[in-house]
């Protein structure tokens, strides 16, 4: 809760230190808090929390950067969802998800859950256990990007 940043500013956070292998993956988590200003207008602030409570809306932001001299092929980012976080959405980043602990992957709309009685139902965001982005084209040297998803503290 040290820094209260407007949503737009959150996206301008600088890249983090590079890993030795020259691919960097930086993970930050923000909590969305709705504040009402003096004029009565509601604004959504993204804060970097140290503490959260059930029901808090979290925004997970993954920044990647290829600082090496060569393109990185078959680039895959995987984020196992913390058990205490319920997946909400991934904006328009269109990730693959798993609802079975990382065994099977697919778009959420195509996945199903087998119920105790053997029948299947469509998977819901709350069923998601892992999120993955699998890039089909190499990441050129020097390129960077950002992925995000939202979750709610159970």
């Amino acid at each position: 809760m040290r820094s209260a940043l407007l949503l737009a500013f959150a996206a301008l956070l600088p890249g983090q230190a590079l890993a030795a292998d020259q691919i960097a993956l930086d993970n930050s988590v923000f909590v969305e808090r709705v504040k009402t200003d003096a004029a009565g207008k509601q604004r959504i602030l993204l804060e970097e929390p140290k503490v959260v409570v059930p029901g808090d809306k979290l925004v997970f932001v993954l920044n990647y950067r290829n600082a090496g001299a060569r393109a990185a092929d078959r680039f895959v980012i995987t984020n196992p969802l913390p058990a205490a976080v319920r997946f909400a959405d991934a904006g328009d980043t269109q990730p693959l998800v798993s609802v079975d602990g990382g065994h099977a992957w697919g778009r959420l709309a195509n996945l199903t859950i087998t119920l105790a009685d053997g029948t299947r139902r469509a998977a819901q965001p709350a069923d998601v256990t892992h999120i993955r982005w699998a890039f089909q084209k190499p990441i050129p040297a020097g390129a960077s990007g950002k992925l995000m998803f939202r979750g709610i503290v159970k």
Partner: protein
Amino acid sequence: MMNAPVGGVVHHYRIPAISTFALACALALPAQAYAAGTRAGSTISNTASASFDNGAGTQTIDSNKVDLRVDELLDVTVDSSDPADVATTPGATGQLLTFSLTNNGNGQEGFALSTVANGGGDNFDPTVTQVYLDNGDGVFDAGTDTLYTAGANDPVLDPDQSRTIFILSTIAGSVADGDRGIVSLIAASKTGTGAPGTSFAGAGEGGGDAIVGSTGADGQDAGAYAVSAATVSLVKSAVVADPFGGSEPVPGATITYTIVATVAGSGSVNGLAITDNVPADTSYVANSATLGGAALTDAADGDAGSYDGTRISVALGTIAGGQTRTVTFQTKID
């Protein structure tokens, strides 16, 4: 915009803003209350990994780890368990209202209980005499349930745990049929209450802070008593038939007495019985009593009526308001 990494990612040399579309979605998310939830004091850790091949085989790296501590959320709800107003009668004591107290927070929490009986919106103020904490069976029993004393045995509930609370009240004798009296049960987190978001530093389970949740960390609900009283009125009339076809009260004339019992009000009367002494200088006509037109025997047997040599008794039992019962019997003038 970040478009479909799966189908061919667009790489950015500057970091893009989170889309306005995503922001709109966030605004539309309802403010949901989560029962219990992640236990206070636990830690949420997030780490992502990336795998890639930059010409030297597949490598995997981990991101930094972000740890978030889960603080205690203070939330409580009180619900009346009575499906409708509890029927009572003027002057009644030990009248029961049942409530359910639930800890919707994510830490173990004690709750102080209080009652309000003069909150208005009703016709009379019941007098709360005791509050009991249920022993778990959901049924009031003063022998096995615990008498509540504020501050001494405040109920302590785990996350998501519920406790049944009983309120006993006395109803004034002056209340009228149809009157309602409301009693509210209030439960307040002992850590503190206040506007949602209020923080109590270091007061949470696990050493963290305690944050007031959407309920304000206090809850209340109302139960009501409805007076359901009934009154009985008796109207007695007599018709004389003399032996000559007239209606003169001469010796030998038969007097037919009719007693109409009318019960009024929204309640009912229990154990209603009509007894009438046979007047002096008259003789009861054996087996002449009727109830609602049906003959009654004089013996104290299966039917409602009996004659013991001096008086007629008819047991009417329980009669609801709005009903009448008609009893007749005959005597002969000596």
